[in-house]
């Protein structure tokens, strides 16, 4: 009977998938939802690829998953992935349904699935990934994720003993996960281009994960990412197997040390968080047995995803649009840090309000006080536009951060933002936007670009 419900679920979902393809509505999780509604344990019954890679963590999982898929494709492989779907159970189901035969067997040998860390209990025990990359664990949406220790506990419960972990040795939270599982660790050494570490409001690891005493950071890159130790019990950040020792944006290469041998790879993107993303992918690929030369050749064909960070010169200005992730103070702080580290006079447009809360509720704006708006209070930042329904809250946050009141403007409607950018006072404009405001941000960006072209 249970088997029957599985086949009924699979065939119904496949029919839904076909129908959606005919009406050109791909990229939804509807087939997976259909399958899970009919057969709740569908994910444990559907065929999985011979080798399944999971990618999870707070920040970077989409980039790492996409990078891995691109690299595997450049190597001539054809992985099943959820790059066009969601990273929860319905998204994973949808991807596996597409790759499954009518008998439910997976027709592909390799799979790369981005897995929502909050869904660890639903995904890890049934999909049993052979390899699981955990990019990092940070404070994220309070409503969904509570706090990083809570997410780490969920993941700990979900990870199965057979999964080999690829972990960030610079993150004391995720590198402590599932201590009995086999693991390969990566780390980014202190780099010459590391900007001076700034104090972040969010610092989620201040006490020892073992004894609870206060820990000491030997090197802190940002937030809790760095190298730390505990004077009380001797705990320290784990030693990495793969250490990124240098990044040379001019030469377009990174150097990674493994087993005391230096290997060079192309530099996909110079931002520090993208160095971590590339390193995570390389660590997995090396662990799987791919040669450094093979990986480097495939990475040479990668293109940076334009929807997350798009920058171009227009007339005498540089216009940058960057995805900042609303409700996620760390992701916003990384963007604010990027703005601060960029030389020149700058104007910043903030489109950070949560789309869903705006429609039916009132956003919990506590996260604004975890984000380092202090980085936007600098002589070179000549204007900050707080745009959207929460503009008064964001303006207040900026003022309390120390922004000059003359430089902060609250703009209720996004359509009015572009006209208010003080182009005459700046050389660079940044549009920082919440993930689901991509379309709106594009409109604002295009309107600013139009003004720049006409000037």
């Amino acid at each position, binding site marked *: 009977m249970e088997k029957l419900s599985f086949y009924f679920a699979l065939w119904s979902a496949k029919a839904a998938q076909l129908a959606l393809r005919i009406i050109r509505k791909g990229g939804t999780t509807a087939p997976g939802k259909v399958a899970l509604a009919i057969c709740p344990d569908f994910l444990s019954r559907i065929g999985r690829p011979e080798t399944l890679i999971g990618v999870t963590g707070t920040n970077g999982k989409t980039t790492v998953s996409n990078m891995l898929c691109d690299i595997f494709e450049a190597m001539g492989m054809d992985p099943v992935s959820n790059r066009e779907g969601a990273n929860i159970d319905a998204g994973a189901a949808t991807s596996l349904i597409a790759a499954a035969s009518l008998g439910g067997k997976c027709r592909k040998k390799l799979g790369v699935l981005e897995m929502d860390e909050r869904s660890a209990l639903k995904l890890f025990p049934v999909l049993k990934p052979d390899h699981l990359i955990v990019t990092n664990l940070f404070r994220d949406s*309070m409503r969904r994720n509570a706090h990083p*220790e*809570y997410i780490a506990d969920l993941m700990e419960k979900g990870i199965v003993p057979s999964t080999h972990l690829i972990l960030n040795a610079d993150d004391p939270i995720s590198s402590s996960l599932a201590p009995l599982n086999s693991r390969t660790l990566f780390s980014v050494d202190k780099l010459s281009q590391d900007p001076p570490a700034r104090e972040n*409001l969010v610092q989620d690891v201040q*006490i020892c994960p073992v004894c*609870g005493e206060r820990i000491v950071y030997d090197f802190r890159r940002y937030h809790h990412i760095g190298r730390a130790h505990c004077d009380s019990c001797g705990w320290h950040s784990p030693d990495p197997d793969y250490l990124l020792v240098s990044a040379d944006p001019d030469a377009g290469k990174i150097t990674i040390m493994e087993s005391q041998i230096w290997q060079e790879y192309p530099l996909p993107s110079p931002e520090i968080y993208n160095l971590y993303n590339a390193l995570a992918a390389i660590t997995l690929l090396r662990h799987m047995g791919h040669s450094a030369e093979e990986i480097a050749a495939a990475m040479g064909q990668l293109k940076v995803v334009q929807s997350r960070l798009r920058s171009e010169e227009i007339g005498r200005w540089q216009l940058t649009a960057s995805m900042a992730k609303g409700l996620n103070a760390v992701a916003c702080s990384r963007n604010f840090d990027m703005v601060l580290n960029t030389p020149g006079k700058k104007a910043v447009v903030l489109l950070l309000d949560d789309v869903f809360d705006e429609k039916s*509720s009132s956003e919990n704006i*506590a996260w604004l*006080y975890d984000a380092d708006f202090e980085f936007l209070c600098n002589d070179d930042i000549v204007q900050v536009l707080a745009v959207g329904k929460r503009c008064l809250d964001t*303006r207040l946050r900026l003022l309390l951060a120390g922004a000059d009141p003359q430089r902060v403007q609250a703009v209720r409607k996004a359509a009015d933002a572009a006209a208010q950018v003080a182009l005459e006072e700046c050389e660079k404009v940044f549009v920082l936007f919440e993930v689901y405001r991509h379309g709106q941000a594009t409109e604002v960006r295009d309107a600013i670009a139009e003004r720049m072209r006409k000037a």
Partner: protein
Amino acid sequence: MKLEYLYPELGNLYGDSANMRYLRQCLPQAEYVETHIGEAPAFVSDPEVCFVYSGPMTERGQGIALEELRPYAGALSEKLTGGLHGLFTGNSMELLGKSITAGETTLDGLGVVELRSRRDIAHRYNGLFLGNTEGIEITAFNSRFSHSVPGAGLQGFAKVTRGIGLDQDCAYEGYRVGNFIGTYLLGPLLVLNPLLTQRLLISLGSEELPAFFTEALQAYEARLTEFRDPKTKLD
């Protein structure tokens, strides 16, 4: 005048440190003390400490803070009776209660107030809060795994207008002991509620308005309008 932040390394999960940062801007002439784990709280021995703050913690952090504070439970009780001002937000307010139960395990609280808390890690409540304390409307946020039941004689902090109180059925949110407020409401509560902050400053003996009072009031009033609107979903 000294204001003390107890265990900032533990009690700051949701922008809560902004409460102390805001007070620094409101009362720049005051002294500010941060007490870390392993250190004796300043309020115990320093009579100039007039305000103590702590914020929401992880479940592990809550256990550590409880053991850190336990030797000073008697002193804390005396100080609160003597008029010490304070604000414990999120689950840090549970520390002062009789007990915190999670599944089969019960932790003894500090026993300063008649409050028993129960944590259910499988169910998190998230929601908006609108309430009223002594004529001041409070707008705030809840995000918690636990609920509490007040004992006889405990005074509530804010009457619930919309949202939930100490538990789903309680008409009051939080508790008050003299000038001390314990509340599940979290985040930058003082920034979000400039009228409450104004009253606190007066009670501390300051005649100054809260920092950026005009802008804070504008944001507060906009939020009030949203929170009062029955179409605004609470959770």
